[in-house]
C-alpha cells in the first residue's frame, strides 16, 4: 500500500500542464470524485442486493442477476463494490479531516509561537517523519483494533506531520509579513491575528491538504483492509481484493477479471482523481508551480 501512496505522489508531482487555471485534469478529478461520492450516497438505491446478503451461489460467473458474479460466500460483487465506495470515501474524508486538524494545530502553534515550542514541535515532526510507516501502522492497528474509526485514527496519526510542516512554514512566513506585524503593533491580539490574517492565508493549504490526505487515506484504508488489519467483515475494496486473492487458484481462472480487478480499478481511479484534484488545487494556490 505504500507503493500505492507513492504512486499517487509521483503522479501528483509530474507537471502535466503548463498553462493557466482549472485544467482538464483538475476538472476530471473533481468529476470522478463527485461521481464516487454520488455512488457512495446512492449505494442502497443502486446496489441490486444487500452486500451482506447471501443472494446467490458461491462463485457465480457474471449473469444478468449478478452483473459481476458472486464472491466465495455467494454475495453479489457489484453490490459489494458499490457499498465499498462508502467505506473508502468515509475513510478518506475522516482521515483527511483528522490529518489536517492535527497538522493545522501543531503547525499553526509552532509557526506562530516560534522559539523553543517551535523547536520542540518540529523535532517531534522530524521524529514522526523518520518513523518507518508500515511497521508503525501495523503496530497501531494491532493496538487500536479493527474498525473504520480506528483505521481513520491510525491514518491521521501517521500523516499529520507532513501537513504540520507545510502549515508551519506558511504561518511563519505570514507572521513576518508587514501587514501582520503592523496589526500586532497596533495592538491586535494573538487570536485576532490568527483568525483575521493567518488563517485566511493558509486556507488554500488546508483545502489542498485535505484532498491530498484523502488520496493517501483511501490507499491506506485499502492497504490496511488488504493486510487484514481493518474490520474483516466490512465491505471495503481492500477486503474484497483480500478475499479474492485468498481463493486458491484465483488467477488460474478468469474469475479475477470480475472479482479482483473492479475493486482494484476503483481504488486506483479514486486515488488518481483525488491526486489530480489535489494537484490542480496546489497549482492554483501556489502559482510558482505553474511556471515549471
Amino acid at each position, binding site marked *: 500500500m505504500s507503493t500505492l501512496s507513492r504512486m499517487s505522489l509521483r503522479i501528483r508531482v509530474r507537471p502535466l500542464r503548463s498553462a493557466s487555471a482549472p485544467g482538464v485534469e483538475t476538472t476530471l478529478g473533481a468529476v470522478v470524485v463527485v461521481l464516487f461520492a454520488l455512488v457512495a450516497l446512492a449505494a442502497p438505491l443502486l446496489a441490486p442486493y444487500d452486500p451482506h446478503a447471501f443472494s446467490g451461489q458461491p462463485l457465480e460467473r457474471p449473469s444478468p442477476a449478478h452483473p459481476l458474479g458472486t464472491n466465495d460466500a455467494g454475495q453479489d460483487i457489484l453490490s459489494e463494490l458499490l457499498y465499498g465506495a462508502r467505506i473508502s470515501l468515509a475513510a478518506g474524508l475522516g482521515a483527511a479531516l483528522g490529518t489536517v486538524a492535527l497538522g493545522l494545530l501543531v503547525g499553526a502553534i509552532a509557526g506562530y509561537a516560534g522559539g523553543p515550542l517551535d523547536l520542540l514541535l518540529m523535532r517531534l515532526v522530524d521524529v514522526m517523519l523518520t518513523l518507518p510507516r508500515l511497521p508503525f501502522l501495523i503496530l497501531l492497528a494491532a493496538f487500536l483494533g479493527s474498525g473504520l474509526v480506528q483505521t481513520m485514527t491510525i491514518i491521521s496519526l501517521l500523516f499529520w506531520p507532513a501537513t504540520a510542516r507545510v502549515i508551519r512554514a506558511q504561518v511563519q512566513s505570514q507572521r513576518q509579513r508587514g501587514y501582520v506585524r503592523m496589526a500586532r503593533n497596533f495592538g491586535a491580539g494573538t487570536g485576532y491575528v490568527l483568525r483575521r490574517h493567518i488563517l485566511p492565508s493558509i486556507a488554500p493549504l488546508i483545502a489542498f491538504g485535505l484532498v491530498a490526505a484523502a488520496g493517501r487515506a483511501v490507499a491506506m484504508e485499502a492497504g490496511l483492509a488488504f*493486510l487484514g488489519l481493518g474490520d*474483516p467483515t466490512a465491505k471495503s475494496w481492500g477486503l474484497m481484493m483480500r478475499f479474492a486473492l485468498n481463493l486458491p487458484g484465483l488467477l488460474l481462472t478468469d474469475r479475477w477479471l470480475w472479482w479482483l480487478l473492479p475493486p482494484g480499478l476503483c481504488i486506483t481511479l479514486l486515488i488518481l482523481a483525488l491526486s489530480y484534484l489535489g494537484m490542480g488545487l496546489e497549482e492554483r494556490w501556489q502559482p510558482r508551480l505553474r511556471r515549471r
Partner: protein
Amino acid sequence: MMLRRPSTQRTWIALSLIVVLLLAACGTELTVTDSPTSPAQPTAHLPIAEPAAQAPYVGTLRLPSGGYWGHPSPFGFNRGPGFSRASLVFDTLVWRDASGETIPWLATDWSLSDDELTWTFTLREGVQWQDGQPLTADDVAFSIDYYLAHPGAGWFMAQVNEVESAIVVGEDQVAIRLVRPYAPFLQTIAEAVLIFPRHIWQDVTDPQAFAEPAAFIGSGAYRLVEFSQEESTYLFEANPDFFLGLPYVRRIEFVPTSDDILALSNGDVAAFDKFGGVTQEMLEPFRQEPFAIQEAPGEWGMFLYFNLEKETPLRDVRVRQAIAHAIDRQAMVDRILFGFGGPGSPGFLPPSNPMYNPNVRDYPVDLEQAKALLAEAGYDSTPIQIAYSPDWIMASPRVVEIVEAGLSEIGIILDKVSMDQATIDAVANEGSYEILITGFGGLGGDADQLRRSFASSSQSRGFSRALGYSNAKFDALAAAQVLMTDPAQREAALNEMQAILAEDLPALALYYTTRVVVYNAEAFDNWYFTPGGYGGGIPQPYNKHQFIVGVPEGLAIRGGE
C-alpha cells in the same frame, strides 16, 4: 489444526502482485503466475524429486509450510502442524500407519498389567540420539517425568496428567503407572509424548524457550537443518543412523507459498492439503496424471464456544439453543467449504468418529423457535461479544458473517472482536471471551476427548476446553466411561454424553471439513490420511511414517535392503 496465518512474506508477494496487476490493468495471467517462489529457494523450478522410476528413493520433498508453527523441539511447536515437524526429529514409544493400528516405534513390545494401571514397554535395541549417545530407558522415564513436572508446556493432546510416574524397570524396559485405568492410553500418551535426551534437557528450566541447537537433537528419522520464523521455512535431512535405516524421503522442505494451487501446478511444491476452501473446479486440473487427490472425512471442525464462567445471557441454556436454531450450519458448508464437509453435530463429535451419535437433539434453522426461546429466557438485547481470528484460511470472517446474519434475525446483538490466531488460543486458555469462534482437529481420535473438553473435573487446558460448564450427569458418565472395558457399554455412555451436550450446548459445532491432499505422484506417491489421526489425533496428511518407509503400512523401508 490447519490454521494458517498468511505470513508477511506471502502478504508481500500478494501485495506486490496486486500493484503489478493494478498498474498493468490488463496484465496477462502469465506475469502473475510466476510469483510464488520461496525465499529459501529463489530459483523456483528446481526439480522436486528424482523420478520414482529412476531412483529407489525420493531426494527432496518440498511442501507448503502454511505459516510458522514454532520451533520443532519437544516443547517449542504450535498445534498439529508444529507437532508434525517436531515428530520428524523426535520419536514416541509407539506410532501408527495407514492401517490405523498402533505399530512399534521406539518400543518394540508393550503390555498392560491386570489391574490396568501399569503399562510396560520394551525399548528397541541400539537406538541412538542424533549426537551419538545411546537412547536408554532412563531417557524415556526422564521425558515423561519432565512432562509431569512442566504441566501445560508440552503437546496438549498428550494426556500426561493420567500418568502417575514412569519407572525404569530394566535396562531396556520402562513401566508407566497410571492414576487410574485409562482406555485411550496408547493413542493419547504413548503415541503423543515425544521422547527427548536426559543429557541435554536435565538442566533446562524453561522448555518452551529452549531453542539452542541441542534442543533439536532427537532420535528421529530426520535432522533439523534449519528453520526460519521470518520466512516460515523448515528444512529436514534424513538421519543415516535412524533405527529403521535411511528413510525413503531423503530431504523434506517446508516452504512458504502464496497460492498452493499455483505452486503445485508450477512444480514448486510436491503436494498441498486443504481442509475445505477449495472447489471441485479448482481440483479439476489435478484429476489427471501426474497428479492425484485423496479425500478423507472431517476430523477438523469449526466451533462456537460459549464461556459460561462469565456473567452473560449465554448462561441461560435457552439463549444457546436459540443461537443454535438461528445459525444456518448447512450454509456454512455450502458457502465456506464449497461442499467439502458437513454441518456440525450438536453432540460435538463428527460422523467420522466411531463413537458418533446421530440421534441427538438437532437444531434445524427455525427463527420463530429461536425467538420464542430468547423471549422465554428474557434476553434483553445485551450485546454479546464474539471473538474470532480473520487470519484463518478457513475464512472465519465468513463464519462471522453467517453467524451474524442469523443472530441479527432473532435480535441478538454481537460485538465483534477480531484477533490473530495465537491470541485466539491464548484467549481460549484464559477464558477472556464470551463467544469464541475457534477450530481444531483431532475429532476422529478417542471419544474420551468429550470428557477432557467438557467434564467439570477435567484438568485439561487448551483451545478445546469448555469453560464454566458443569452437568453432574455428564460428569458421572465421563468418569465412568474411562473405566469401561466393555466396548458396547462404553459406547452407550458416550452416546448419552453426546445427547447431553446437544441439550446443554456448552459449545456448538458449526461444521466439519473434508480433508483433501492433492499431490504430484511423480514426486512422491505414498500419501495417506491416518485413521484416527497420528500423534494423539492429528488429522493432517503429514504422518512421518509415510515419508520414512515410503509405503502405507509396516516398518520395512521401500527400496531398502
